[in-house]
Every structure is written in C-alpha cells, then in structure tokens.
C-alpha cells in the first residue's frame, strides 16, 4: 500500500515563477493557477487567490482564464531577500489553504577568487593551495581548485571542504619538476569566475624542512671564531639548497646573517665573536633556484664563547 498516490487529482493548483534564482534587487514574477474543478470542495466562481512572501502578504492580480481556471499574477519589482518562499493561498471551506509555493533565491554572480598561493608538503608531496574567496554571492556556489599539466588537456585538482578556501591536490594528480597551470573556479546559478592562473612547478613551492645544527665549537681554539656543523633535513637530501645562518648575543635585538651556505652538510666558520658571551644560532634553507619558500628557522642552539 503506497501512502501517496502523487498522481492523485493533481493540478488543482500550481505556482510558476519566472526564474528560481535572480540577481539581488531585480524584479520577480510568478503566477498561481487554480483549476477549481480539480479541487474538491472549491466552488468555481468564488476562488479568491492570495499571496504571502514568507509571512508577509503581497498583492497579486487575479483574472479568469480559459477553461474555468483562475490565475493570479504577482510582480515584485525589487526582490531584496537572498532567499524566500512565495506562497499561494486560497480560501476553502472557511479556511485558508496553502496550495502552492515557489522558492526564490537572489544574489550575485561569484566574485573572482584572488591571492592564490600553493605550498608542496614534502612529507606526502600533496600540493596545498589557498585563496581569498571575495564577496559573498549569497547563492550556492561550487568552488574548485583546478590544475592542468602544461601539455595535457586533463584538468584535475581538488574541492575545498566545509566552505574552506583551501584544499590539497594529492601527489597522484601532480606533475613534479614540470610547469603546471593552477587556478580557482567559482560557479553559481548566475555565472562563473576564475582566479588568476598560476604557472608553477610544484617543486618550486616546496616547503622545506629546516636543517639541523649539529655542533658548535670555538675553532680555532683561543680565537674569536666559531665553527658550526650543520646538516639539511633528510627529506631535502636530494635537492640543491642554499642556506643562511643567523646568530645574536642573548641581549642583542639584531641578528647577524651569514648567507650563501651551500651543500648537504658542512661546517661554517664565523669570527668576531665576543668572549664569554652566550650566542643563539638558527639556520634555514631554500632551493638554490631561489624560487619557493624558505624553510622555517631550525630549532635554536645556544653556545657560550670561552673567556678571553
């Protein structure tokens, strides 16, 4: 036994709207048609159609149409709700009946996403991109990050979850060591917008793990020089890197900076240190192509130079 026989005597009433989605502030039209001979208990000549916009009465114009149907047309010159229900009512057996409804949504075409940037995570080689969404369109908008190999037609990418403005392209969908085109696309009922297209090799935006400071010694002995042994992170061992070292005395605000340190590991010597003073050392690296991000500064190491 099916509880519903939707065929039923349907057609007693129906509401039609111009478009279910309109630009905010534009006009909305709708019509409510009553075929009284299909509405049991509704006396033909006495059909009075009224409208409500959500819970607010609005006036339509009713007229008799061929075949004994009654039609009420409604025009709302300036629809300022982002979402509302247009209800059609008739009076029946002394009660007011809801007989039809149209859901209207209003908003704007999607804003152009901007500030797109990406980072490659070297632990799982996922490419995480983030962007700014732009003004709210008030409409259901599907956002997708798109990426295409420079030569292939295939477009892959990822979809942000839970309304976030970031998502991660898994390794399987990436071409490493080659240019890829990456952009954000936003689409709703009123249009589509695309961000600027980035053209990057995922490796060039790799987020490197920081190097490790192995040991610090006063070498050569009894001088104001210090030798610092360091090593790049294992995840970067195959890369050509350029690193830089910074140090400062405990109370000093400014850092001294040693740049252009290359290789996978080594010892860097610096001189001019004050005697009997505690210094704080940190190091970071970047791909030697000077593209892409610096790693975080390594965990700091303290070292106190010997007395004079």
């Amino acid at each position, binding site marked *: 036994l099916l*509880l*519903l026989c939707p065929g039923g005597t*349907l057609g007693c009433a129906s*509401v039609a709207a111009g478009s279910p989605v309109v630009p905010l502030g534009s006009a909305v039209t709708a019509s409510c048609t009553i075929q009284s001979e299909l*509405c049991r*208990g509704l006396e033909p000549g006495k059909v009075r159609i009224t409208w409500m916009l959500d819970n607010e009465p609005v006036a339509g114009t009713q007229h008799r149409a061929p075949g004994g149907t009654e039609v009420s047309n409604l025009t709302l010159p300036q629809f300022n709700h982002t979402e509302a229900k247009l209800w059609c009512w*008739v009076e029946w*057996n002394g009660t*007011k009946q809801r007989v039809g409804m149209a859901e209207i949504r209003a908003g704007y075409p999607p804003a152009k996403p901007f500030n797109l940037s990406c980072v490659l995570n070297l632990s799982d080689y996922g490419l995480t991109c983030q962007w700014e969404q732009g003004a709210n369109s008030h409409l259901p908008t599907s956002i997708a990050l798109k990426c295409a190999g420079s030569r292939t037609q295939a477009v892959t990418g990822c979809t942000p979850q839970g309304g976030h403005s970031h998502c991660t392209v898994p390794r399987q969908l990436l071409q490493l060591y080659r240019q890829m085109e990456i952009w954000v696309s936003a689409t709703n009922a009123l249009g589509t917008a695309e961000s600027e297209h980035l053209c990057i090799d995922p490796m060039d935006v790799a987020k490197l793990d920081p190097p490790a400071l192995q040991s610090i010694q006063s070498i050569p002995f009894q001088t104001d020089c210090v030798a610092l042994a360091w090593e790049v992170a294992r995840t970067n061992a195959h890369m050509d890197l350029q690193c830089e070292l910074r140090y400062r005395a405990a109370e000093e605000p400014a850092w001294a900076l040693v740049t252009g340190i290359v290789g996978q590991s080594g010892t860097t010597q610096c001189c001019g240190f004050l005697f009997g003073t505690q210094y704080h050392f940190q190091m970071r690296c970047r791909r030697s192509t000077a593209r892409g991000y610096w790693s975080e500064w390594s965990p700091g190491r303290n070292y106190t130079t010997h007395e004079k």
Partner: protein
Amino acid sequence: APLAELSGDQDFQLFLHKNLEFTRKIKGDVAALQRLVCDTFQLCKEEELLLVRQDLGIAQAPLEQCHSRTFQAEACFSQIRAGLRTYHGSLASVLELLPGHAGLVETLQLDAANLSSNIQQQMEDLGLDTVTFPSEDRGPLPAFSSRFHHQVGGFFILANFQRFLETAYRALRHLAR
C-alpha cells in the same frame, strides 16, 4: 492460550513494557522530524494543507483492529507490523526531503523495522500466526510533480505516522498491566 490469560505472563508483560518505551522513543523521533519539516519548509499546520492533501490522495495505514471497540490483539499486532513496514518505505520520501538529517530518518527506519521484528518474535513466542514480509525491495518511490507537493507529502507521512504510533501505543498499553 487466549491473550487475556497471557496478560499475566511475565515475559509478555516485559515485552509490552519494553516496546511501550520503544514506541515512545519512535514517537519522539517522529516529532523531531515534524519540527524539522516545520522549520525548514514552513509547513507546520495540518489545517492549512487539507486541500493539497486531497490532491495528493494520501492514505493512512489501517489500524481498525487496534481500536478498543473491536480490539483483536493478534490482528492488531499484524496490522501494526504491516503499518510499520509501510511507513518504513514511505520514510524514503522524507529522506529525500531532508538529506542533511539522513541519520535521524535512517534511525527512524531502523527503529520501525526493529519494533516490527520485536512484535513478530513475541507473536511467535505466543504461538500466534505471523506474516513474514519480503525483505528490502519496496518498489519505486512516488514521483512528486513539484517540490512543494513533495514537501507536503513528507509532512503528511510524518503526521499520519505519528497518529499511527499513538494508536499502536494505546493498544500495547491496553494489554500492559
């Protein structure tokens, strides 16, 4: 043994006591879904939808065997089971309406099926004849001519199911000590 005698049977009383609570739980969940339909679709008052209900030709699952005048426990239990099965199927239309609350609707379907099998087992324990319904397949869902009619259809499925449960609850309570 005639059911009157069994009313003193401890197992039967435990069955009644448990499944009275189960029915209260299901009624509570149906009420929660009715509130959701009201909040989501502004369909809250039955008296505003009587004309459309005629349009949709909505029928109710029969429970006349459970009304006290003609009370016949075995037939009443069978009608309760048949009705639970029908509403289990119809809830699929509500599931389509409230995709964001699928968990609550699916729990309701699980509970309806569970209550029906609890009753079936108890009827078997009492040596009463029981019908074994074919498993899942229930045929296609009704196709509504508009979202509005689909929403009103969902509204009445829940309203009728609530009334059905109220009658079933009174029948079980009639038997309970």
